[in-house]
Protein backbone atom coordinates (compact mmCIF):
# COMPACT_ATOMS: atom_id res chain seq x y z
CA UNK A 1 0.00 0.00 0.00
CA UNK A 2 2.87 2.35 0.81
CA UNK A 3 5.36 0.83 -1.64
CA UNK A 4 5.58 4.09 -3.64
CA UNK A 5 7.14 5.76 -0.57
CA UNK A 6 9.75 3.07 0.13
CA UNK A 7 13.26 3.71 -1.30
CA UNK A 8 14.02 1.85 -4.55
CA UNK A 9 15.93 -1.41 -4.43
CA UNK A 10 15.25 -2.25 -0.78
CA UNK A 11 12.76 -4.57 0.87
CA UNK A 12 10.56 -3.68 3.84
CA UNK A 13 8.16 -5.65 6.02
CA UNK A 14 4.41 -5.67 5.18
CA UNK A 15 2.54 -2.50 6.18
CA UNK A 16 0.32 -4.19 8.86
CA UNK A 17 3.44 -5.55 10.61
CA UNK A 18 5.01 -2.06 10.49
CA UNK A 19 1.84 -0.44 11.86
CA UNK A 20 1.69 -3.09 14.61
CA UNK A 21 5.22 -2.16 15.70
CA UNK A 22 4.33 1.53 15.65
CA UNK A 23 1.25 0.83 17.77
CA UNK A 24 3.29 -0.94 20.46
CA UNK A 25 5.75 1.96 20.68
CA UNK A 26 2.81 4.37 20.46
CA UNK A 27 1.19 2.90 23.61
CA UNK A 28 4.39 3.52 25.59
CA UNK A 29 4.58 7.03 24.10
CA UNK A 30 0.99 7.76 25.15
CA UNK A 31 1.77 6.57 28.68
CA UNK A 32 4.56 9.16 28.76
CA UNK A 33 2.31 11.87 27.32
CA UNK A 34 -0.26 11.13 30.03
CA UNK A 35 2.47 11.52 32.65
CA UNK A 36 3.56 14.84 31.09
CA UNK A 37 0.01 16.17 31.24
CA UNK A 38 -0.27 15.03 34.85
CA UNK A 39 2.95 16.88 35.73
CA UNK A 40 1.97 20.04 33.87
CA UNK A 41 -1.56 20.09 35.30
CA UNK A 42 -0.85 18.98 38.90
CA UNK A 43 2.67 20.35 39.26
CA UNK A 44 6.10 18.99 40.19
CA UNK A 45 4.87 17.60 43.52
CA UNK A 46 3.85 14.41 41.65
CA UNK A 47 7.58 13.76 41.19
CA UNK A 48 10.07 12.43 43.74
CA UNK A 49 12.02 15.70 43.67
CA UNK A 50 12.36 17.69 46.88
CA UNK A 51 14.55 20.35 48.47
CA UNK A 52 17.55 17.99 48.26
CA UNK A 53 16.87 16.99 44.67
CA UNK A 54 16.27 19.99 42.44
CA UNK A 55 18.08 17.96 39.78
CA UNK A 56 16.93 14.35 39.54
CA UNK A 57 16.07 11.59 37.06
CA UNK A 58 15.14 14.00 34.26
CA UNK A 59 18.39 15.93 34.40
CA UNK A 60 20.33 12.66 34.42
CA UNK A 61 18.30 11.46 31.40
CA UNK A 62 18.87 14.82 29.75
CA UNK A 63 22.63 14.68 30.20
CA UNK A 64 22.73 11.01 29.22
CA UNK A 65 20.83 11.42 25.92
CA UNK A 66 22.92 14.50 25.07
CA UNK A 67 26.13 12.52 25.65
CA UNK A 68 24.83 9.50 23.73
CA UNK A 69 23.63 11.79 20.91
CA UNK A 70 27.17 13.16 20.70
CA UNK A 71 27.73 10.64 17.91
CA UNK A 72 25.98 13.08 15.56
CA UNK A 73 28.33 16.02 16.05
CA UNK A 74 31.42 13.83 16.21
CA UNK A 75 30.63 11.90 13.02
CA UNK A 76 29.84 15.28 11.38
CA UNK A 77 33.25 16.49 12.54
CA UNK A 78 34.95 13.36 11.16
CA UNK A 79 33.08 13.49 7.84
CA UNK A 80 33.10 17.19 7.00
CA UNK A 81 36.08 18.65 8.86
CA UNK A 82 38.58 15.78 9.13
CA UNK A 83 37.43 14.37 5.75
CA UNK A 84 36.90 10.69 6.65
CA UNK A 85 34.89 9.66 3.59
CA UNK A 86 33.78 6.22 4.87
CA UNK A 87 31.75 7.96 7.61
CA UNK A 88 29.23 9.11 4.96
CA UNK A 89 27.74 5.60 5.18
CA UNK A 90 26.75 5.96 8.83
CA UNK A 91 26.31 9.72 9.21
CA UNK A 92 22.62 9.71 8.12
CA UNK A 93 21.84 7.26 10.89
CA UNK A 94 23.97 9.21 13.38
CA UNK A 95 22.07 12.40 12.51
CA UNK A 96 18.72 10.60 12.95
CA UNK A 97 19.82 9.41 16.39
CA UNK A 98 21.08 12.91 17.18
CA UNK A 99 17.73 14.48 16.25
CA UNK A 100 15.91 11.97 18.48
CA UNK A 101 18.30 12.56 21.40
CA UNK A 102 18.16 16.36 21.23
CA UNK A 103 14.38 16.57 20.76
CA UNK A 104 14.14 14.26 23.78
CA UNK A 105 16.55 16.43 25.77
CA UNK A 106 14.56 19.60 25.10
CA UNK A 107 11.28 17.81 25.80
CA UNK A 108 12.62 16.63 29.16
CA UNK A 109 13.70 20.19 29.98
CA UNK A 110 10.24 21.45 29.01
CA UNK A 111 8.73 18.99 31.49
CA UNK A 112 11.23 19.91 34.19
CA UNK A 113 10.59 23.64 33.79
CA UNK A 114 7.00 22.85 34.82
CA UNK A 115 5.42 25.78 33.02
CA UNK A 116 6.97 25.63 29.53
CA UNK A 117 4.74 28.28 27.93
CA UNK A 118 5.08 30.91 30.64
CA UNK A 119 8.67 30.26 31.76
CA UNK A 120 10.80 28.50 29.14
CA UNK A 121 11.46 31.61 27.04
CA UNK A 122 12.79 33.55 30.04
CA UNK A 123 16.18 31.84 29.75
CA UNK A 124 16.53 33.29 26.24
CA UNK A 125 14.97 36.72 26.69
CA UNK A 126 16.37 37.48 30.16
CA UNK A 127 19.68 35.70 29.64
CA UNK A 128 22.12 35.54 32.55
CA UNK A 129 25.43 35.60 30.70
CA UNK A 130 27.32 34.33 33.75
CA UNK A 131 25.34 31.09 33.89
CA UNK A 132 26.55 27.77 32.47
CA UNK A 133 22.88 26.74 32.17
CA UNK A 134 22.15 29.71 29.90
CA UNK A 135 25.00 28.62 27.66
CA UNK A 136 23.53 25.11 27.67
CA UNK A 137 20.05 26.40 26.75
CA UNK A 138 21.39 28.56 23.90
CA UNK A 139 23.71 25.98 22.39
CA UNK A 140 21.25 23.10 22.86
CA UNK A 141 18.41 24.92 21.10
CA UNK A 142 20.65 26.22 18.31
CA UNK A 143 22.22 22.78 17.84
CA UNK A 144 18.79 21.14 17.57
CA UNK A 145 18.08 23.58 14.72
CA UNK A 146 21.36 22.51 13.08
CA UNK A 147 20.50 18.82 13.53
CA UNK A 148 17.06 19.32 11.97
CA UNK A 149 18.76 21.10 9.05
CA UNK A 150 21.09 18.09 8.70
CA UNK A 151 18.05 15.73 8.81
CA UNK A 152 15.95 17.67 6.26
CA UNK A 153 17.91 16.55 3.15
CA UNK A 154 17.31 12.97 4.23
CA UNK A 155 13.55 13.59 4.32
CA UNK A 156 13.72 15.35 0.95
CA UNK A 157 15.38 12.27 -0.54
CA UNK A 158 12.19 10.28 -0.04
CA UNK A 159 11.14 8.92 -3.45
CA UNK A 160 7.95 10.96 -3.72
CA UNK A 161 9.26 14.21 -2.23
CA UNK A 162 12.33 14.06 -4.47
CA UNK A 163 10.05 14.21 -7.54
CA UNK A 164 9.22 17.85 -6.71
CA UNK A 165 11.96 19.90 -8.49
CA UNK A 166 12.31 22.51 -5.73
CA UNK A 167 12.78 19.86 -3.03
CA UNK A 168 15.17 17.89 -5.25
CA UNK A 169 17.37 20.98 -5.68
CA UNK A 170 17.00 21.97 -2.02
CA UNK A 171 18.30 18.59 -0.92
CA UNK A 172 21.23 18.88 -3.35
CA UNK A 173 22.07 22.47 -2.33
CA UNK A 174 21.88 21.65 1.38
CA UNK A 175 24.35 18.81 0.85
CA UNK A 176 26.66 21.28 -0.90
CA UNK A 177 26.89 23.56 2.14
CA UNK A 178 26.51 20.86 4.81
CA UNK A 179 30.11 21.34 5.94
CA UNK A 180 29.20 24.85 7.13
CA UNK A 181 26.24 23.53 9.12
CA UNK A 182 28.32 20.64 10.49
CA UNK A 183 31.09 23.01 11.61
CA UNK A 184 28.50 25.21 13.34
CA UNK A 185 27.12 22.07 15.00
CA UNK A 186 30.57 21.11 16.28
CA UNK A 187 31.07 24.63 17.68
CA UNK A 188 27.70 24.55 19.46
CA UNK A 189 28.15 20.98 20.69
CA UNK A 190 31.57 21.65 22.21
CA UNK A 191 30.07 24.46 24.25
CA UNK A 192 26.83 22.83 25.40
CA UNK A 193 28.44 19.46 26.20
CA UNK A 194 31.15 21.33 28.08
CA UNK A 195 28.76 23.64 29.88
CA UNK A 196 26.75 20.67 31.16
CA UNK A 197 29.97 19.51 32.82
CA UNK A 198 30.67 23.08 33.86
CA UNK A 199 27.36 23.25 35.73
CA UNK A 200 28.60 20.50 38.06
CA UNK A 201 32.23 21.63 38.20
CA UNK A 202 31.56 25.20 39.36
CA UNK A 203 29.48 24.18 42.40
CA UNK A 204 32.01 24.95 45.13
CA UNK A 205 29.38 24.15 47.78
CA UNK A 206 29.24 20.57 46.45
CA UNK A 207 32.76 19.16 46.93
CA UNK A 208 31.86 15.91 45.17
CA UNK A 209 31.35 17.76 41.87
CA UNK A 210 33.63 20.78 42.27
CA UNK A 211 36.82 20.81 40.18
CA UNK A 212 39.72 23.18 39.65
CA UNK A 213 39.48 25.60 36.74
CA UNK A 214 41.29 26.61 33.58
CA UNK A 215 40.27 30.27 33.13
CA UNK A 216 36.49 30.15 33.76
CA UNK A 217 36.10 26.47 32.83
CA UNK A 218 36.35 23.64 35.40
CA UNK A 219 37.98 20.39 34.22
CA UNK A 220 34.52 18.81 34.00
CA UNK A 221 33.80 21.21 31.10
CA UNK A 222 36.48 19.52 28.99
CA UNK A 223 35.79 16.01 30.29
CA UNK A 224 32.10 16.20 29.34
CA UNK A 225 32.84 17.33 25.76
CA UNK A 226 35.55 14.71 25.43
CA UNK A 227 33.39 11.89 26.81
CA UNK A 228 30.46 12.78 24.53
CA UNK A 229 32.75 12.69 21.49
CA UNK A 230 34.26 9.41 22.72
CA UNK A 231 31.16 7.48 23.80
CA UNK A 232 28.60 9.01 21.39
CA UNK A 233 29.88 6.92 18.45
CA UNK A 234 29.52 3.78 20.66
CA UNK A 235 25.79 4.51 20.91
CA UNK A 236 25.56 5.06 17.14
CA UNK A 237 27.32 1.73 16.51
CA UNK A 238 25.19 -0.02 19.13
CA UNK A 239 21.91 1.20 17.60
CA UNK A 240 23.05 0.51 14.03
CA UNK A 241 23.95 -3.06 15.01
CA UNK A 242 20.66 -3.41 16.91
CA UNK A 243 18.78 -2.25 13.78
CA UNK A 244 20.68 -4.87 11.79
CA UNK A 245 19.66 -7.56 14.29
CA UNK A 246 16.00 -6.51 14.23
CA UNK A 247 15.79 -6.22 10.43
CA UNK A 248 17.91 -9.32 9.87
CA UNK A 249 20.05 -7.43 7.34
CA UNK A 250 23.54 -5.99 7.05
CA UNK A 251 23.11 -2.26 6.63
CA UNK A 252 26.64 -0.89 7.03
CA UNK A 253 29.92 -2.40 5.80
CA UNK A 254 32.42 -3.69 8.36
CA UNK A 255 35.14 -1.20 7.38
CA UNK A 256 32.83 1.69 8.39
CA UNK A 257 32.13 0.12 11.79
CA UNK A 258 35.82 -0.66 12.17
CA UNK A 259 36.91 2.94 11.49
CA UNK A 260 34.33 4.51 13.80
CA UNK A 261 34.97 1.94 16.54
CA UNK A 262 38.73 2.51 16.30
CA UNK A 263 38.38 6.30 16.56
CA UNK A 264 35.90 5.90 19.41
CA UNK A 265 38.30 3.50 21.17
CA UNK A 266 41.20 5.95 21.05
CA UNK A 267 38.95 8.79 22.17
CA UNK A 268 37.73 6.69 25.14
CA UNK A 269 41.29 5.68 26.01
CA UNK A 270 42.57 9.26 26.03
CA UNK A 271 39.44 10.43 27.86
CA UNK A 272 39.77 7.78 30.54
CA UNK A 273 43.45 8.72 31.12
CA UNK A 274 42.31 12.33 31.57
CA UNK A 275 39.47 11.18 33.83
CA UNK A 276 41.87 9.15 36.00
CA UNK A 277 44.20 12.17 36.26
CA UNK A 278 41.23 14.38 37.16
CA UNK A 279 40.00 11.91 39.80
CA UNK A 280 43.49 11.53 41.28
CA UNK A 281 44.01 15.32 41.49
CA UNK A 282 40.54 15.76 42.99
CA UNK A 283 41.19 13.03 45.60
CA UNK A 284 44.79 13.99 46.40
CA UNK A 285 44.74 17.80 46.19
CA UNK A 286 41.27 19.37 45.90
CA UNK A 287 39.45 17.32 48.54
CA UNK A 288 42.12 17.55 51.30
CA UNK A 289 42.27 21.32 50.77
CA UNK A 290 38.54 21.39 51.62
CA UNK A 291 38.90 19.05 54.62
CA UNK A 292 37.56 15.91 52.91
CA UNK A 293 38.86 12.48 52.00
CA UNK A 294 37.88 10.36 49.00
CA UNK A 295 36.01 7.81 51.09
CA UNK A 296 33.73 10.53 52.54
CA UNK A 297 31.88 10.25 49.24
CA UNK A 298 31.80 6.47 48.91
CA UNK A 299 30.84 5.22 52.40
CA UNK A 300 28.12 5.41 55.09
CA UNK A 301 25.26 4.98 52.65
CA UNK A 302 23.30 2.12 51.13
CA UNK A 303 24.04 2.70 47.46
CA UNK A 304 27.07 4.82 46.56
CA UNK A 305 30.08 2.63 47.29
CA UNK A 306 33.53 2.72 45.71
CA UNK A 307 32.16 0.14 43.25
CA UNK A 308 30.55 2.94 41.25
CA UNK A 309 33.92 4.60 40.62
CA UNK A 310 35.49 1.27 39.65
CA UNK A 311 32.54 0.49 37.35
CA UNK A 312 32.68 3.89 35.64
CA UNK A 313 36.42 4.11 35.09
CA UNK A 314 37.50 0.47 34.97
CA UNK A 315 34.70 -1.76 33.68
CA UNK A 316 32.96 0.81 31.49
CA UNK A 317 36.00 2.92 30.57
CA UNK A 318 39.33 1.10 30.39
CA UNK A 319 37.81 -2.22 29.24
CA UNK A 320 35.82 -0.91 26.21
CA UNK A 321 38.76 1.33 25.27
CA UNK A 322 41.15 -1.63 25.20
CA UNK A 323 38.71 -3.71 23.17
CA UNK A 324 38.09 -0.96 20.60
CA UNK A 325 41.71 0.07 20.04
CA UNK A 326 42.80 -3.47 19.21
CA UNK A 327 42.19 -5.01 15.78
CA UNK A 328 41.36 -8.36 17.42
CA UNK A 329 38.77 -6.71 19.69
CA UNK A 330 37.08 -4.87 16.82
CA UNK A 331 36.93 -7.93 14.60
CA UNK A 332 35.10 -10.04 17.21
CA UNK A 333 31.34 -9.55 17.11
CA UNK A 334 30.92 -10.47 20.78
CA UNK A 335 33.69 -8.15 21.93
CA UNK A 336 32.49 -5.17 19.90
CA UNK A 337 28.94 -5.62 21.25
CA UNK A 338 30.40 -5.82 24.77
CA UNK A 339 32.53 -2.72 24.23
CA UNK A 340 29.80 -0.47 22.84
CA UNK A 341 27.27 -1.55 25.50
CA UNK A 342 29.81 -0.97 28.29
CA UNK A 343 30.72 2.38 26.72
CA UNK A 344 27.08 3.52 26.70
CA UNK A 345 26.63 2.39 30.33
CA UNK A 346 29.90 4.13 31.26
CA UNK A 347 28.90 7.57 30.02
CA UNK A 348 25.40 7.22 31.55
CA UNK A 349 27.03 6.23 34.85
CA UNK A 350 29.30 9.27 34.70
CA UNK A 351 26.31 11.56 34.20
CA UNK A 352 24.45 9.73 37.00
CA UNK A 353 27.16 10.30 39.60
CA UNK A 354 27.74 13.91 38.53
CA UNK A 355 24.01 14.65 39.04
CA UNK A 356 22.50 12.20 41.51
CA UNK A 357 25.49 11.35 43.71
CA UNK A 358 26.33 15.06 43.89
CA UNK A 359 22.84 15.65 45.29
CA UNK A 360 22.99 12.62 47.63
CA UNK A 361 26.23 13.55 49.40
CA UNK A 362 25.66 15.57 52.61
CA UNK A 363 26.78 19.13 51.97
CA UNK A 364 26.74 20.37 55.57
CA UNK A 365 28.32 18.59 58.58
CA UNK A 366 25.12 17.72 60.47
CA UNK A 367 23.32 16.42 57.37
CA UNK A 368 23.09 12.79 56.20
CA UNK A 369 23.06 11.00 52.84
CA UNK A 370 19.83 11.60 50.95
CA UNK A 371 18.80 8.86 48.54
CA UNK A 372 16.15 9.49 45.93
CA UNK A 373 13.40 7.35 44.42
CA UNK A 374 11.67 8.58 41.26
CA UNK A 375 7.88 8.37 40.99
CA UNK A 376 6.11 6.67 38.09
CA UNK A 377 5.41 9.93 36.19
CA UNK A 378 9.15 10.63 36.20
CA UNK A 379 9.88 7.09 34.99
CA UNK A 380 7.16 7.27 32.31
CA UNK A 381 8.43 10.61 30.98
CA UNK A 382 11.99 9.27 30.97
CA UNK A 383 10.95 6.17 29.01
CA UNK A 384 8.92 8.32 26.57
CA UNK A 385 12.03 9.36 24.56
CA UNK A 386 12.86 5.68 23.99
CA UNK A 387 9.41 5.07 22.47
CA UNK A 388 9.71 8.31 20.50
CA UNK A 389 13.12 7.19 19.22
CA UNK A 390 11.82 3.77 18.17
CA UNK A 391 8.99 5.43 16.20
CA UNK A 392 11.32 7.91 14.44
CA UNK A 393 13.86 5.19 13.57
CA UNK A 394 11.09 2.89 12.28
CA UNK A 395 9.62 5.60 10.04
CA UNK A 396 13.04 6.85 8.88
CA UNK A 397 14.26 3.35 8.11
CA UNK A 398 11.12 2.48 6.15
CA UNK A 399 10.79 5.61 4.04
CA UNK A 400 14.18 7.34 3.92
CA UNK A 401 17.59 6.26 2.61
CA UNK A 402 19.34 6.36 5.98
CA UNK A 403 21.62 3.43 5.11
CA UNK A 404 23.25 4.19 1.73
CA UNK A 405 24.93 0.75 1.58
CA UNK A 406 21.78 -1.26 2.24
CA UNK A 407 20.96 -1.88 -1.43
CA UNK A 408 24.48 -3.08 -2.20
CA UNK A 409 24.65 -5.35 0.85
CA UNK A 410 21.17 -6.81 0.28
CA UNK A 411 20.58 -7.22 -3.47
CA UNK A 412 16.98 -8.18 -4.29
CA UNK A 413 16.64 -11.30 -6.43
CA UNK A 414 14.91 -10.42 -9.74
Amino acid at each position, binding site marked *: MDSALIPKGVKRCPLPQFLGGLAVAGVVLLWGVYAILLIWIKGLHVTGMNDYYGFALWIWADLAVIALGGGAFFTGFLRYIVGKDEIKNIINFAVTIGVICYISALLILAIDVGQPLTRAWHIFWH*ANVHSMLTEVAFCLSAYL*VVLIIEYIPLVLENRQIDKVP*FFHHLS*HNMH*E*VMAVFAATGVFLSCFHQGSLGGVAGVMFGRPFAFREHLFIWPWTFFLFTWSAAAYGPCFTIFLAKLTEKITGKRLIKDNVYDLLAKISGWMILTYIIAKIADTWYWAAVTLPSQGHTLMDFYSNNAFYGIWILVAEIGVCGILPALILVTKKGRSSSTLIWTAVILGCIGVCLNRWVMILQTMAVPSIPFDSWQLYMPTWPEVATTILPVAFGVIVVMISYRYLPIFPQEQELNPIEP
Partner: protein
Amino acid sequence: MFPFVFEWVWDLGHLVFMGGLWYALTIVGLGMTYCIIKSAIDASKEAAGDHDH
Protein backbone atom coordinates in the same frame (compact mmCIF):
# COMPACT_ATOMS: atom_id res chain seq x y z
CA MET B 1 19.17 38.96 24.73
CA PHE B 2 19.05 42.16 22.68
CA PRO B 3 20.59 45.59 23.37
CA PHE B 4 17.07 47.04 23.62
CA VAL B 5 16.02 44.67 26.46
CA PHE B 6 16.27 46.56 29.78
CA GLU B 7 18.87 44.34 31.49
CA TRP B 8 21.38 44.56 28.62
CA VAL B 9 24.85 45.82 29.63
CA TRP B 10 27.61 46.72 27.17
CA ASP B 11 30.29 44.53 28.76
CA LEU B 12 32.61 41.77 27.55
CA GLY B 13 30.39 38.99 28.96
CA HIS B 14 27.35 40.11 26.97
CA LEU B 15 29.35 40.75 23.80
CA VAL B 16 31.11 37.35 23.82
CA PHE B 17 28.12 35.32 25.02
CA MET B 18 25.42 36.89 22.87
CA GLY B 19 27.87 37.47 20.01
CA GLY B 20 28.56 33.71 19.91
CA LEU B 21 24.86 32.90 19.77
CA TRP B 22 24.05 35.42 17.08
CA TYR B 23 27.14 34.43 15.09
CA ALA B 24 25.95 30.78 15.03
CA LEU B 25 22.34 31.71 14.25
CA THR B 26 23.46 34.08 11.47
CA ILE B 27 25.53 31.36 9.79
CA VAL B 28 22.62 28.90 10.00
CA GLY B 29 20.11 31.53 8.79
CA LEU B 30 22.28 32.71 5.89
CA GLY B 31 23.09 29.13 4.91
CA MET B 32 19.43 28.14 4.76
CA THR B 33 18.47 31.36 2.92
CA TYR B 34 21.16 30.66 0.31
CA CYS B 35 19.94 27.06 -0.14
CA ILE B 36 16.27 28.06 -0.49
CA ILE B 37 16.92 30.91 -2.96
CA LYS B 38 19.35 28.84 -5.05
CA SER B 39 16.91 25.91 -5.11
CA ALA B 40 14.07 28.18 -6.28
CA ILE B 41 16.32 29.57 -9.05
CA ASP B 42 17.51 26.07 -10.05
CA ALA B 43 13.95 24.73 -10.10
CA SER B 44 12.65 27.66 -12.19
CA LYS B 45 15.58 27.28 -14.63
CA GLU B 46 14.77 23.59 -14.95
CA ALA B 47 11.09 24.38 -15.58
CA ALA B 48 12.04 27.01 -18.20
CA GLY B 49 14.36 24.45 -19.85
CA ASP B 50 11.51 21.93 -20.01
CA HIS B 51 9.27 24.54 -21.70
CA ASP B 52 11.97 25.37 -24.29
CA HIS B 53 12.25 21.73 -25.29
